[in-house]
Structure formats: structure tokens, C-alpha cells
């Protein structure tokens, strides 16, 4: 391990451009002749489109054109799709209603796109949009998932009677019922997981460029996975064949899941560029982002957890309803099923688990993966339930968890997942020590003396990262494989380009991926460039989400590096007239082990390209590609402890301390891992205390600005005490598990457990605002 290799605390290579205002995000792009788009959106949650009159708008100043859904359909542009097939327990396929990029007959949520204006300036496009006259016949709407399931509720799609998309199950229902019937104790609880808006600081944006000379399209877009965007736009939306479509995701200002999906705007801007013969740029405004970016979470569940007389969990039975909004977004069906119910065993040996999940249409924006995607919902449910059980049984929450921990690996859960490595007790012990768990009662007494209520709560989470073995997810309904690719390209002077199908939008890949190469070859980190985000440069890739870039993306780089090193060793052996097996690579040189014979790295690279003196039959060049398909998910886990003080007069919660003890497997760069944990914690604390999307009964979004939707700010968060108890992941070459979601997954239940402990009332839903906490205090007494 060199100073810049794996494990080193290297400051980021990409930082300087971000610090000096020289980052290049999609909205920063300008091309000659570029015009601005504005989307006209439905103001109604549910309505028939009777007529669209664009004549006045077309003659407004600066307007190039105004286009609607009928023209889009006439040009053969297809519907948006959900790429993961789920079958209901009766064997029927999920009911996917038609989602037109521009609505034609019916709009189904406030923000549903209806038409596009293209004009010289963004202001002129907005002005012209005001002049488009759309006659709507307003229909009854339903935004609440329970209401949407009632008889007589407004129906969104003819394909989905009762608004039911699928009714899916996992596990053995009868075995779970039997275990519950014979249990010594059963804990029952209703769990609500609040709906969230991802809100990356960079709003979505796209620039569509049609080149009539080549009949070729270029799409700049704010994407976490540009190759998937190209594939889907080509194969399903009929925008252009893949070889005629280049997708570039330049610097992307955060994604958190919301930039995985292909939205209507990319498709429509590409098509509009061809129709108008000008490059067309669209940038979402913030209210548009609230209205149209896929939301996250929004589950309601009924839970029963059964225990034997020795307090071992004998069964878990879960009935969940998930709101998927007005249409099925790209991966929406996978989130409340295979990314959720498969994690319901948590860190515990539970012999029987059954989960039933119904997904439902409502007149709200589509719901899809948001940081953690299903795993936060599973962890919140499980950790609130076991905490509640501990209180009911009069046991220490730590000891009840400890008693039920899985202790030997590999461990096959009853819900598909096979945990490969972990040490849950190590994280629990570390967290309790860091939190001074034993000193809590004295601190509580001190708070009480000051008229405050103090509480402590923990959460032991597990998640599945490194998505995913392609054949396994294929058998479960995924429409794509989830491998990753890499190309390691050594230039003739020895500098190196690594082309990766992963995409960095804040994760620091330009540094961590370079650390891997620098450590392996002993070359300076400055001599390595990481290339990503452009389908014309990088071979096929699957992108970045679910903490897959380290576990899967870097594993592909390892494979390509193995091949490059093997060839370099052959060349070096030939140059030094040594045996290939004796060559070692160290400090930028290829050496004959045990001798002072060596050739510098750059000389081997040069020799490969001059090809004057290569081993007989060897092809010139030093460049290798690899695809890595993981053999399992990875399973980061940990224990989080929150300690809070609540002011009973106001209901205000103060986080006194927050401890995170994580097992992420091997760590590439501690600095970046800490940043990822901080970020996840900020979003998890946001969910627990501040954030909630609210629609009114007519489907109007009430939280469509940062004044109405409370995002965590600098003064809302405490400092964090972090530690690691790492067990290397056995399934990938670097032993990496992933760290991107952990904070968002583990923190909400720890906080709600702490607050409910403080106030002595277990009935509290997220976000635990001062008002709700105050009401809960008064309801309890």
C-alpha cells in the first residue's frame, strides 16, 4: 500500500474545478444556436385534455415552436416504461399503465408534461407558455394510498382495476401464521414511512442536440447512468438507434437515486431538437423538481413479530402498501419488493418471514428509488418493531437485539439474501461504548433536573449493496444485467486513462479509482485520469446507485488491471531477458525479483506501442477491457445510537449525540467514506425530524419549495462520532461492501426510538416535528 493507494486519506483530485466555479454541469453547457425549452404541465392532479390551442403562443416574441403529445406520438416516440417485471401472487404481471412523455388524453398528476415551448430565451419560453390555452375536463383525484384502494375511488389506469399495480408476496404465510399463533409474545405495530423528495441541489437538466448532417443525436443530461439512458431511449422510446445517440452525463450535482431514471424531458428535448433543427436546453426549476422528480419511500405497513419464551424471534409478518404515484417509474417495482422485503431479516436469525406488498397508483408524481431504496423502509420497520418489543417485554433493547443476532456466516435468510460476512456484535459494542450507554441514566437524571426529557435509541441495520449478480436479478424480473465494465488504457508515455461505466456525482471516483491504480502500479496519482459519463468514450456501463461503484465498478477495474499487468510483465520479461514469473511491479517499475534489474513503467508502455521489440506474436498496445459480474450482493451493517433531549414545553428535539459504528468491508479512502456517512446521516436525520411531502386531497402538492419542505441545514445537525468494525467482503476482489446509503438507512429508527424513549409515548410518526412531539407528550400524560 503506497501513500496514495488503497486505504490512504487522499484529498480529492476533482476538488479544484468545483471550488473555482469550473465544474461543468449540464446547465453550464452552451452550444451554438442553442434555444431554451419550457414545459407546460398539468395544474390538475387528474383531468381529461379536451383541447390544446398553441396558436397565440407560436406568434409570441422569440418563440421557435410549441409542440404537443400528438405530434410526439405521430413521430413514433414510445411510452416510458418500468424495467423490472413483478408478478402478483396470483401469477399475473404487474399492471403498467401508459405513460406518455407528453400527455395526450389524460393527465394524472400535477406536473404531468403536456407540451413544450422552444424559444430564444428561457424568459420568452415561459411567457409563451402562458399563452398556450389548454381546456381540461377535471376528474376526481386521489393522492392518498388508502383512499386509492377504497371501492369507488377515482381510477387512474384502465389496466389497473382498483388502482392495484401488483399484490406480491415473499416467504411462507402459513408458517408465519402458525409461529405467531404459538408465540409466547407477539409485538404488533403500524409503521408509516414518510414520503420524501430527493432534492439534489442541481435540478435536472438536459440539452438535446440533433445533427441533421449525420442524422445523429447528442443528449447532455443529469444522469447517474448515461449508458442505461441511451439503451432505454433507444430500445423503448424509439428516439434513435444506439449508434446514433450519444448520451453525456458531465458533472452531476447529486443524484440520490432521482437521476437514475429516464424522464420525459430528455426524450422530448431530443425530439424537439430534430423538429426545430436547433439545440434545445431545458433546466428544471425547483418547484418543477418537487413536482416531477421521482419521490421516495411512502409505505404504510402492519407488522407482527413473534417471540418464544426465551425472547428469540420466531416469525415476522409484514403487510405493506406502497404508493407508486401516477405512473410506474423505471425501477419503481423493484424498490418495495426485492430491495425491501429481502432485507426484512435484518441482523437477526428469524426462521420464518412473510411479507405481502401491494403497490398502488395515486394522482401523485411517480415514486422510485431514493437513497437506500427499500432498505431504509425495511430497517425502519424492523428496528422500530424490535425496540417496541423490548419495551413491551421489559428488556434492554441492546440485549434483545444481541440475543437474536446472526452469528455464523454465510447465513441464508428466509427471504432470498445470503449474508456472506459480518460481525454485528462488534458494531453494537463499539457504538454502546462510544455513546457511553451505561452512563445514560445519570445524564437522563441531569436533564430531568433541568425540566427536559432525555432519550436514547439504537438501530442495527443491514443493507444489500453492490447490486447485483445479473443472472439472479434477471430471474427476479430485472430487465437489465447489473455487471460493470472498465477499460484501462495505458498511453505510450505511461500515463493512464481508466474508462468506467460507473458515474461519479459526488462520490469522488476520480480520486478513489485512481488510488486503486496508483497503488497497484506505484505511479503518481496525477498520471491517472478517470473517464466516465460519456457513451462515446466509455464502453457500455450500468452506472452508479446502491453503492455499486466500489464493489462492482472497481472490481471491473481490478480485472482490467490484472490483464494490463500480465501483458506488461510479459513485455518487461522480454526486455530484460528474464522469466515472466519473476517480474514484480513496484514504485513505477517492473523489476526482476531479487535482482537490481528493472525497467520503468513508462518504458514498458512505450515498448508496447513502438512494437520494435515485443515477444514473438504479441499484439502491440497496452489497453485492456473487463466486465465484472458480481457473484453476490454485499452486506454493509452497523449500529447507530442517537441520544436526544426534548423540551416538553415546545416539543423541540435536540440531538445531543449521534454515534455510527459501521462495517463497510475494506475502505479505499477514509476521508471519502466519512463524507458519505455524514451525507447519509444528514438525509436520514432529515427524514426522521424534518422532511415530508404533503399533497392535499385534490392532489395539489403543498410542499413544492424549500420554504415548505424542510431540508436539513447546517444548524439542524449535530457532530457525529464515527467508527468502523470492518469485515472484508468475501465476494469481490477488493473486499468492499459500500457506504453510500448506510447513514440514511440506519439513522431514522435510532432517532425515533430515542425520541419515543424520551417522551414515553411510542406512537410517533416521522418527521418528528416539534408539533408532533409536543402532541405525543400530551397524549401520553
Amino acid at each position, binding site marked *: 500500500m503506497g501513500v496514495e493507494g488503497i486505504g490512504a486519506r487522499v484529498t480529492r483530485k476533482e476538488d479544484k474545478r468545483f471550488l473555482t466555479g469550473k*465544474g461543468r454541469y449540464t446547465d453550464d453547457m452552451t452550444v451554438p444556436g442553442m434555444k431554451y425549452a419550457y414545459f407546460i404541465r398539468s395544474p390538475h392532479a387528474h383531468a381529461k385534455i379536451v383541447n390544446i390551442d398553441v396558436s397565440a403562443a407560436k406568434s409570441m416574441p422569440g418563440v421557435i415552436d410549441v409542440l404537443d403529445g400528438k405530434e410526439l406520438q405521430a413521430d413514433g416516440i414510445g411510452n416510458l416504461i418500468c424495467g423490472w417485471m413483478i408478478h402478483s401472487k396470483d401469477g399475473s404481471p404487474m399492471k403498467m399503465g401508459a405513460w406518455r412523455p407528453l400527455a395526450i388524453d389524460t393527465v394524472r398528476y400535477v406536473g404531468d408534461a403536456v407540451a413544450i415551448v422552444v424559444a430564444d430565451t428561457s*424568459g*420568452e419560453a415561459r411567457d409563451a407558455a402562458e399563452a398556450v390555452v389548454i381546456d381540461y375536463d377535471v376528474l376526481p383525484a386521489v393522492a392518498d394510498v388508502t383512499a386509492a384502494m377504497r371501492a369507488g375511488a377515482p381510477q387512474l389506469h384502465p389496466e389497473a382495476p382498483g388502482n392495484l399495480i401488483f399484490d406480491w408476496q415473499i416467504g411462507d404465510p402459513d408458517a408465519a401464521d402458525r409461529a405467531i399463533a404459538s408465540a409466547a409474545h407477539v409485538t404488533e405495530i403500524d409503521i408509516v414511512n414518510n414520503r420524501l423528495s430527493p432534492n439534489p441541489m442541481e435540478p435536472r437538466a438536459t440539452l438535446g442536440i440533433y445533427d441533421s448532417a449525420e442524422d445523429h443525436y447528442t443528449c447532455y443530461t443529469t444522469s447517474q447512468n448515461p449508458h442505461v439512458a441511451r439503451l432505454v431511449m433507444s430500445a423503448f422510446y424509439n428516439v434513435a438507434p444506439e449508434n446514433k445517440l450519444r448520451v453525456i452525463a458531465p458533472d452531476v450535482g447529486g443524484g440520490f437515486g432521482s437521476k437514475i431514471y429516464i424522464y420525459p424531458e430528455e426524450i422530448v428535448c431530443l425530439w424537439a431538437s430534430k423538429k426545430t433543427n436547433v439545440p434545445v436546453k431545458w433546466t428544471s426549476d425547483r418547484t418543477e423538481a418537487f413536482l416531477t422528480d421521482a419521490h421516495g419511500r411512502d409505505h404504510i405497513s402492519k407488522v407482527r413479530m413473534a417471540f418464544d419464551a426465551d425472547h428469540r424471534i420466531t416469525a415476522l409478518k409484514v403487510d405493506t402498501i406502497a404508493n407508486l404515484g401516477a405512473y410506474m417509474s423505471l425501477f419503481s417495482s423493484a424498490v418495495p419488493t426485492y430491495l425491501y422485503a429481502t432485507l426484512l431479516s435484518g441482523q437477526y436469525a428469524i426462521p420464518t418471514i412473510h411479507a405481502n406488498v401491494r403497490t398502488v397508483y395515486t394522482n401523485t408524481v411517480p415514486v422510485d428509488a431514493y437513497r437506500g431504496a427499500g432498505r431504509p423502509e425495511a430497517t425502519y420497520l424492523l428496528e422500530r418493531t424490535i425496540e417496541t418489543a423490548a419495551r413491551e417485554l421489559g428488556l434492554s433493547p441492546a440485549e434483545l437485539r444481541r440475543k437474536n443476532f446472526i452469528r455464523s456466516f454465510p447465513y441464508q435468510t428466509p427471504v432470498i439474501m445470503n449474508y456472506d460476512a459480518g460481525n454485528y456484535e462488534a458494531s453494537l459494542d463499539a457504538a454502546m461504548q462510544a455513546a457511553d450507554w451505561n452512563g445514560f441514566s445519570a445524564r437522563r437524571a441531569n436533564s430531568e433536573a433541568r425540566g427536559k426529557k432525555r432519550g436514547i435509541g439504537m438501530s442495527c441495520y443491514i443493507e444489500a449493496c453492490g447490486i447485483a449478480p445479473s443472472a439472479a436479478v434477471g430471474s427476479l424480473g430485472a430487465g437489465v444485467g447489473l455487471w460493470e465494465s472498465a477499460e484501462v488504457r495505458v498511453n505510450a508515455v505511461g500515463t493512464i486513462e481508466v474508462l468506467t461505466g460507473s458515474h461519479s456525482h459526488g462520490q469522488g471516483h476520480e480520486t478513489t479509482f485512481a488510488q486503486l491504480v496508483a497503488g497497484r502500479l506505484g505511479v503518481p496519482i496525477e498520471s491517472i485520469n478517470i473517464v466516465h459519463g460519456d457513451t462515446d468514450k466509455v464502453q457500455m456501463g450500468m452506472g452508479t446507485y446502491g453503492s455499486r461503484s466500489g464493489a462492482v465498478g472497481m472490481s471491473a477495474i481490478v480485472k482490467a488491471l490484472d490483464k494490463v499487468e500480465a501483458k506488461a510483465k510479459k513485455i518487461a520479461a522480454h526486455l530484460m531477458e528474464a522469466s515472466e514469473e519473476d517480474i514484480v511491479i513496484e514504485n513505477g517499475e517492473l523489476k526482476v525479483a531479487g535482482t537490481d534489474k528493472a525497467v520503468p513503467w513508462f518504458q514498458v508502455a512505450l515498448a508496447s506501442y513502438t512494437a520494435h521489440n515485443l515477444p514473438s506474436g504479441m499484439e502491440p498496445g497496452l489497453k485492456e477491457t473487463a466486465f465484472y459480474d458480481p457473484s453476490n450482493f454485499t452486506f454493509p451493517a452497523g449500529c447507530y445510537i442517537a441520544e436526544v433531549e426534548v423540551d416538553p414545553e415546545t416539543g423541540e428535539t435536540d440531538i445531543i449525540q449521534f454515534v455510527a459504528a459501521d462495517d463497510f468491508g475494506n475502505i479505499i479512502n477514509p476521508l471519502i467514506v466519512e463524507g458519505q456517512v455524514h451525507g447519509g*446521516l444528514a438525509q436520514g436525520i432529515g427524514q426522521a425530524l424534518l422532511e415530508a411531502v404533503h399533497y392535499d386531497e385534490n392532489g395539489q402538492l403543498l410542499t413544492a419549495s424549500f420554504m415548505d419542505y424542510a431540508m436539513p441545514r447546517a444548524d439542524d445537525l449535530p457532530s457525529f462520532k464515527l467508527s468502523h468494525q470492518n469485515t472484508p467482503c468475501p465476494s469481490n476482489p477488493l473486499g468492499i461492501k459500500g457506504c453510500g446509503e448506510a447513514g440514511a438507512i440506519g439513522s431514522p429508527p435510532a432517532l425515533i426510538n430515542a425520541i419515543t424513549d424520551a417522551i414515553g409515548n411510542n406512537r410517533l410518526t416521522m418527521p418528528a416535528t416539534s408539533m408532533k412531539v409536543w402532541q405525543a407528550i400530551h397524549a401520553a400524560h
Partner: protein
Amino acid sequence: MTRTIHLSLDINGKQHELDVEPRVTLLDALRESLALTGTKKGCDQGQCGACTCHVDGKRVLSCLTLAAQVEGRQITTIEGIAAEGGDLHPVQAAFIENDAFQCGYCTPGQIMSAVACIREGHAGSEEEIREYMSGNLCRCGAYNSIVAAVREAAEMAATGVAAKDKAEVA
């Protein structure tokens, strides 16, 4: 064509001439007319701080400032705070050292706010920094590192002043 007005703006010590509609904000003028895209649009509603610039040394939200309002005043953007030779401003350097950002989108606004926060004398404690930086959202959640970076830069600035004072006394 829509009616435009002519403006002459002093940005980062250079004079820029532009013709824009009267309604154009400083933020849009910088980004769309002057190709100074370092200043970011996060909400366009004055609620996130990503567009923070300095006018006459004080922080302003450029999305809530009309370009026409700032004629004749000194505007500083993220492109104008590093030294001419390219040396980073101490706040920028502290952001690297403390890993005070991830995706980088809110960062120009954070840095402009941080420079002003220190200049205003509001960087005396962690609590004070949190409060006076609370107008700048960071969804990546790098707040603790941002606070550490501001603290470090503020301490450096204070030490620098102290050293200068000592020299003057001597």
C-alpha cells in the same frame, strides 16, 4: 424581440457590457449572458444559497437581485476569489483539506458565504458558523466538514491579522 436595456457591470474587477431584458436577474446575466457559470442556480427563489455572490463585499442572493440593480457596484463571483496566479483563496484551500463537499454544486455558494461569514465576524464558534451558514443548503450533507473548513479558514485569517498586528507593533 423583447425590449432590452444596456448594462455595464463590474465583475471580478473587469467591466462587462451586456444587453438584457430589464427583468433579468444577476444570476441569469452571469450564467446566460456572460458565461460565468460558476454561480449556480439551485432554486431561483432565494431559499438555497447556491447563487451567493458578493456585491460591494457583502453576500447577496444573485437570483433575487436584478442585474440592473448592481450597475456601478463591485460584483465578486466564485471565479474572482482565487489569486490572479491561480493560488486558491484560504477558504477554498480549507474546503479541500476538510473534504467539505461532494457533488460540488452548492460549493461556489458555500464558499462565497463562508468568505463573507468570516469577514462579517460570524465565524467565532462552531455554533455561530452553523447559524450563519444555514442559508446555504448542501444535500450531500457535508455540513460538518463545511463548518470545520470555515473554522480553519477563520482561524488562519485571525492568526494572519494577529501576525500583521505584531509586526506593526514591532
